[in-house]
């Protein structure tokens, strides 16, 4: 019971953390691309496009994970394949 409450509270934490990570990455990307020189701009931009393209969907998944946690989906993990079919 006590653990289930923690799981739900943490679910909310993950839901907040996911957009915060995206915001942090976007802010970093803008800053680093802005600081780059003409010579390095295309490379720096490419690197940040890769990072954002990869981590944005993962953060969305993390948000959904948090949502499931908040809704109590992980209170009781399945014990048989029948539970997940």
């Amino acid at each position: 019971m006590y653990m289930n409450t923690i799981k739900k509270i943490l679910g909310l934490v993950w839901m907040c953390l996911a957009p915060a990570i995206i915001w942090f990455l976007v802010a970093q990307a803008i800053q680093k691309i802005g600081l780059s020189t003409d010579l390095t701009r295309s490379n720096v931009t490419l690197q940040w496009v890769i990072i954002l393209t990869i981590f944005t969907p993962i953060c969305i998944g993390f948000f959904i994970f948090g949502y499931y946690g908040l809704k109590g989906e992980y209170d009781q993990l399945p014990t048989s394949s029948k539970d997940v079919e």
Partner: protein
Amino acid sequence: MSFVTKPSKISLVIGASSVGTLIEWYDFYIFGMLATIISKQFFPSDAGTSALLSTLAIFAAGFIVRPFGALVFGRLGDIIGRKYTFLLTLVLMGGSTFAIGLVPGFATIGWAAPILVLILRLVQGLALGGEYGGAATYVAEHAPANRRGFWTSWIQTTATLGLFLALGVIIFIRSNQGVEAFSAEWGGWRYPFWMSIILVVVSILIRMKMSESPMFTKLKSEGKTSTNPLKESFGHKANFKMVLLALFGAVMGQGVIWYTGQFYAQSFIETVCKVEFVQSRNLMLWAILFATPFFVIFGYLSDRIGRKWIMMLGMLAGILTYRPIYQYFLDATNAKNRTEKIDLAHTISSEKIATVDVKDRTKILVVQKVDTAYLDGAIFSYTKTDTLQIAAEFSDINASKIQYVQVDPLDGTQFDTVLLQLKSSAGLNLDTTRIADVVVLSKSAKPTILVEKTLDHATYWNLIWLVFVQILYVTMVYGPIAAFLVELFPTKIRYTSMSLPYHIGNGVFGGLVPFLGTLIVEFTKTTDNPAGDPLAGLWYPIGVASICLFIGVIYLTNKVDKEVMD
């Protein structure tokens, strides 16, 4: 219902699965092992760090597409069967690896070279994405319930043994060929890629003789296989939530622990600590050799005490000890217990270099576009500048005679013009009889290793021990993971469901460790601190592992699912 496979047959199942997976890992790793050479061969010679970063990005691209390979081949594996799917992935992996060895360098075909390599690297990543889930599922579906962790852990050893094989082959060829021949456009660095085709053919022949997984065969005969495993895996909340839990509570942390121990460690020792090429690879070989049996030991233990706490302990150990371990790497390789090997031919990177002798026996060294130059230790040292520099350097007089002149190349001044000015300059008191002897010493490309450090015996073994410790963490998180994932999902969608979190965790979170680690260190570089904080790159694996550990401890169960044949 259970399907007990005879001990003699399970050995064959494990052998056939492991050999193929081993070869796929070998194929995948040689690219990373040869990143420095590849960056020179497939990118413009003056691209410097950005070429290496681009190469690492291509290396990482191979990891990033692995989840897509997991979806494509996972779906196939759940529909047509495990055996034929991982035969297909093997062919794709071997073919693309062989083809990378055939791509001409940037000097011959320009930008087509990195583009071709990127495409082939993506095929490699897709194939690997389909391979692992198939092999792990195939073995798990043959193994008895109380030995699933033990038997699947043999598959887990292949990732490390693949690295071992890749390192061994590269060292062997490089040692026999010499550095110059090995690094040439059509040099020995291509041989490991070409060798792949032989290994793959052998592996295909072995796998062709294998039969399909008994559980999948039963499902198929009953017409119960999934018609749309993607929809069933990710469209149903009950299953999708387990995919997310597997990713964020176990595999994400396992991925960063793995790639830090096996890749970041080697990259750090070679590029930051600048330990000599062969020595840095040999110490990895020793560490891997000593640590590999622990995959099986922890796999076995996971059958007895559960998977969760072994994996969590491995993550915790990494989080707590990475920074002290890497700090030791820095301290040990900067101390006096090593010798620096400075080779003029390998320590100057520039477009043009010339010397001019003058009357007072001073040699004037003229260097244009120096990236990094070391001459006679502290006498002459520049790092990363595009300015035209004129320096005096001498092997036979003291440092007070050194003269430095810097000219901005953007004003149109060219090397030869400056050289001419130097020759005619009365102020430098040139020996006119020697002016004609001015020789361009080098138009070298960027050297492979600028300063190599050869470690003494004690430091060498200390480093082996500390790399071994990191790989021990890898064995703790990675040894039980296949059994853990297999038990999380039902048979008819197992290949798809377990492959995706595995490859996002390992391919994306883990595969990005070298790239993001290098990038984070770059961010810490300032004009006041041009070297940056060499340990800053560790915050990425430490951060990811910490979140994963937290989630795993709270959300995962330690219960071993005895019945996966459902």
